[in-house]
């Protein structure tokens, strides 16, 4: 039995954490995605390092969000999407026939561009929703996870006195950090972030960025961003996508100071895109 099927109920197992043996968190090989027959991602092969932040940059429509969504099989929500190639999460094929998308998504959390706390739920209920709807009912554990997740999302001090208040009473930046806490509460191994700060003001943005840097101690983070400075500030590695192709992938410092390809240089220096 492989660990993927053992992870059928990862909620009850202790925090697995990324492997620290230097193996990549994600390894994609010849990953192509088609929407209604149109190729939007072309044979992307990339290794994403564990416990680090990898930024995905590129102009609109270059396939970076599609790539991100393939990493937790979210693109399958679109019935016209088709995928070719291979994605491994810590060595396990997440597209294997016996692997359910639901299980993959419990291991690979996601934060979206637009913060989306559930409007019918309180702050606390939002944090624990992933646990409760996956069958965890023990109150003590739920309370513990609530505090733990909110602390990790740097939101605890701001909301600890009003956990029962509606989530939508929070400010935009707080709502986004609540969404991060919600994703962390199910104890994923990887966190995917799809432009998590693009709808926030500069102050809220810098809080999210600090958080990303803090979280990489325990998590593997893949972040899609339109903001070059953000990529430079928070990430260890940067992948530049253009027209569905992975153009260049290297240490962030290298990408921003001395890229190998002309296209990359033009993009990071703001000459196109």
């Amino acid at each position, binding site marked *: 039995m492989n660990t993927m099927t053992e992870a059928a109920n990862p909620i009850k197992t202790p925090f697995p954490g990324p492997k620290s043996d230097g193996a990549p968190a994600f390894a994609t090989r010849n990953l192509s995605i088609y929407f209604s027959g149109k190729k939007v991602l072309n044979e992307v092969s990339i290794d994403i390092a564990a416990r680090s932040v990898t930024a995905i940059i590129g102009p609109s429509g270059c396939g970076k969000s599609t790539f991100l969504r393939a990493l*937790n099989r*979210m693109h399958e*929500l679109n019935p016209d999407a088709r995928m070719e190639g291979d994605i491994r999460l810590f060595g396990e094929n997440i597209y294997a026939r016996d692997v359910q*998308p*639901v*299980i*993959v*998504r*419990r*291991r690979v*959390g*996601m934060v*979206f561009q*637009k913060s*989306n706390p*559930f*409007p*019918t739920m309180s702050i606390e209920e939002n944090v624990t*929703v*992933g646990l409760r*709807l*996956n069958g965890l009912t023990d109150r003590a554990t739920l309370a513990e996870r609530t505090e733990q997740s909110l602390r990790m999302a740097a939101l605890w001090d701001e909301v600890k006195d009003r956990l029962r*208040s*509606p989530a*939508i*009473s929070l400010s935009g930046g707080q709502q986004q950090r609540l*969404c991060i806490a*919600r*994703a962390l509460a*199910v104890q994923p191994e990887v966190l995917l972030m799809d432009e998590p700060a693009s709808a926030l003001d500069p102050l809220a943005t810098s809080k999210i960025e600090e958080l990303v840097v803090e979280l990489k101690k325990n998590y593997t983070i893949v972040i899609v961003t339109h903001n070059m400075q953000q990529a430079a500030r928070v990430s260890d590695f940067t992948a530049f996508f253009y027209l569905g192709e992975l153009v260049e992938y290297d240490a962030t410092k290298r990408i921003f100071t001395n890229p190998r390809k002309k296209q990359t240089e033009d993009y990071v220096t703001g000459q196109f895109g």
Partner: protein
Amino acid sequence: MLQEMTVSNHHWRRFKNVLMQTLACVCAVLVVSPLILVFYHLIREGFTSINWALFTSLPKPVGETGGGMGNAIAGTFILLAQAAFIGVPVGVLGGVFLSEYGSFRLNWWIRFAADILNGVPSITWGIVVYALLVVPMHGFSALAGGAVLGMIMIPLVMRTTEEVLQLVPSGYREAAFALGISKWRTIVQIVLRTATKGIVTGVLLALARVAGETAPLLFTALGNRFWAHSLTEPIAAMPLQIFAYAISPYDDWHRQAWAGALILLLLVLAINMGVRFLTRDRFPGKS
């Protein structure tokens, strides 16, 4: 010259503006006035006949004054409960299918069918259920009455459910899926919960519509001058009772028909207000 033209043009425009505004106002009054008329008449004619006996007693035989329509009031509640029992689950789940599952082509046909069903005259529903239930069961029954009202509710509830589910932003579904929550739980706990108010409103509108249906009940529930003791017997209902009393030659029955109509209206109003109160915003003023 140019100046003059602009000025006269300006007057003409102002005239058109006032004209259209007046027309819109008149139409708005015309829309609301039937409601006011109905209320006014029902209260004027029916209010004095409302007394305790009307709610608790059986109708008196012809020639005796007094009596009530307690059996019809109870019957309407029983019929509505049965209708909701059939119409709400089937309608809501059908709406869930249309909104969350199904394919474009299949859904197009289902919607088309539901819209046609919504336009089917209620007397036709009555005949259909007469053939499907009354004839095989060898008699009119409360069950048949509840079934026909439930069937009328299904397409109504289905379409409104679909529409309010479509209004739930897809971001909530994505957020739930990204947490590894299964599709079914996402639908029940996130999507339906977010849309509860809209669905309840749709169900209420459907219930209010069938509460006043008379024609289909003539073929199914039939009416009953006594208390019904089983669902397989004919049962009284307020619209039937109002119909029977209104076409009778007796003044006393006419008065009771007015009172019955007023009660029916107040009943619909009361259900509406009650459920609105129950489903009021858990977090008022925050959305």
